[in-house]
């Protein structure tokens, strides 16, 4: 716990606040666009557009906005945000040559890695909370300004929706954090860690566009576990995620269970490789 406290103190830095502000701003801008589009679509009076506008209003409910925030952070925006944080927080220990200080105070390297992972994951959870808070403030204002219809969503429904998605996003954020940690250990630098982590996520999505890969890619496991809908909805809708949009829409996504199994296996495999590489690596500079 002492190591984790040390890592959290180090995370209190301009990079974290910048990434958090950017993520929250991104969510709000997305909400502004989605709400505005829903209003324009609904003006035609079509029943489908009315339903879609009500759905957007439901997404922007202060409580249900947790689902929106979790969906966005458990997809590409969150992955890229964690890539930046992994580069600065983990890779930076090599680039700034501070790792030797750390390891001469605490010689058990696997514990150092565990504290890094836990702090990165907590940063990811913090991103979800910040985005949720931003959407909870902006959502009701947008619904009122754009005169979106009442979604007739009970408090319990909203809480269940948000709780489910936020809960599921915790595992996805842990996987994203682990990929960032592994990239930092392998590349031993800020830029290398950022680029490799971001590249890994993009590669996951590219691999998932190949129809024959179907259920056996990390990207589809994320999709299955989070329950992201298959295929492209209208580009003008407020998206619940930035993930399934890039995945082949022809196949059926893996089930929650397969998604869970795949992600846990990935977490374990990346963790094992990271620990082995870190234990064997010399600290120069």
């Amino acid at each position, binding site marked *: 716990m*002492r*190591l984790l*406290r*040390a890592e959290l*103190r*180090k995370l209190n*830095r*301009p990079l974290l606040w910048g990434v958090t502000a950017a993520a929250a701003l991104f969510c709000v801008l997305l909400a502004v666009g989605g709400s505005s589009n829903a209003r324009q679509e609904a003006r035609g009076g079509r029943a489908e557009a009315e339903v879609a506008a009500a759905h957007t209003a439901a997404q922007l409910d202060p409580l249900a906005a947790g689902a929106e925030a979790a969906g966005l952070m458990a997809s590409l925006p969150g992955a890229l945000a964690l890539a930046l944080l992994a580069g600065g927080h983990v890779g930076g220990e090599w680039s*700034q*040559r*501070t790792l*030797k*200080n*750390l*390891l*001469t*105070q*605490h*010689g*058990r390297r696997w514990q150092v890695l565990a504290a890094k992972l836990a702090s990165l994951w907590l940063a990811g959870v913090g991103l979800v909370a910040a985005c949720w808070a931003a959407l909870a403030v902006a959502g009701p204002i947008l619904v009122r300004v754009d005169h979106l219809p009442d979604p007739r969503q009970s408090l319990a429904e909203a809480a269940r929706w948000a709780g489910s998605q936020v809960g599921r996003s915790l595992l996805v954020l842990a996987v994203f954090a682990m990929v960032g940690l592994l990239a930092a250990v392998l590349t031993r630098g800020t830029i290398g860690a950022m680029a490799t982590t971001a590249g890994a996520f993009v590669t996951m999505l590219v691999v998932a566009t190949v129809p024959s890969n179907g259920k056996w890619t990390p990207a589809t496991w994320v999709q299955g576990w989070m329950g992201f809908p298959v295929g492209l909805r209208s580009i003008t809708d407020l998206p619940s995620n930035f993930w399934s949009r890039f995945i082949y829409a022809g196949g059926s996504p893996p089930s929650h269970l397969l998604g869970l199994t795949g992600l846990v296996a990935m977490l374990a495999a990346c963790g094992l490789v990271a620990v082995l590489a870190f234990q*064997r690596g*010399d*600290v*120069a500079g």
Partner: protein
Amino acid sequence: MRMLLGLVRPSAGRAWLNGRPLPDPDGLARVGAMIEEPAFYPWLSGRRNLEVLALCGPPLPGGDAIEVALDQVGLTPVAGRKVKAYSQGMRQRLGLAASLLRDPTLLLLDEPTNGMDPAGIREFRSVLRALADGGTTVFLSSHLLAEVEQVCDRVAVLHAGRLVEEGRIAELTGEHAGLEAAFLHLTGDDGEVGDAPAPR
């Protein structure tokens, strides 16, 4: 020194630190180290950097250990300033403060006076002397032989990765003018057997 601290894996051989065989993560608790140029988190203050390092290991020996260490190296007045605003010499002092946090029985220092001003070096010397007199073993590596001559009780000369000589300063210098002359003689770099062209 990096091998003793567990930063580099030895390819062969064995080593003991404070009487314990390596690797020994628990043994690091009583070892202070400053390896080459010390590095810190630039967005944190000097004091905050020490607090973070204190959290990275076992609890400090006293509640005021950070303040004591800062005071020992003369950084108390600027401890609240961010490290990015520190000069090289101030960073060296902070590195020394970090190595003193856990009241070490052994202090490993690699080129510790790099970048320090003359007043800082003088202070540094007196800190090391006080630590050694108090029973701390100070193991210092430096190319500044005049500095070594002033600070150290015993000296070991390494050349091409091998121990050439080891002993008290007086034993090593012997008939030589000083440690530098003795070093050059021991390593064969004193020009007596060299083939460098004579200056014109």
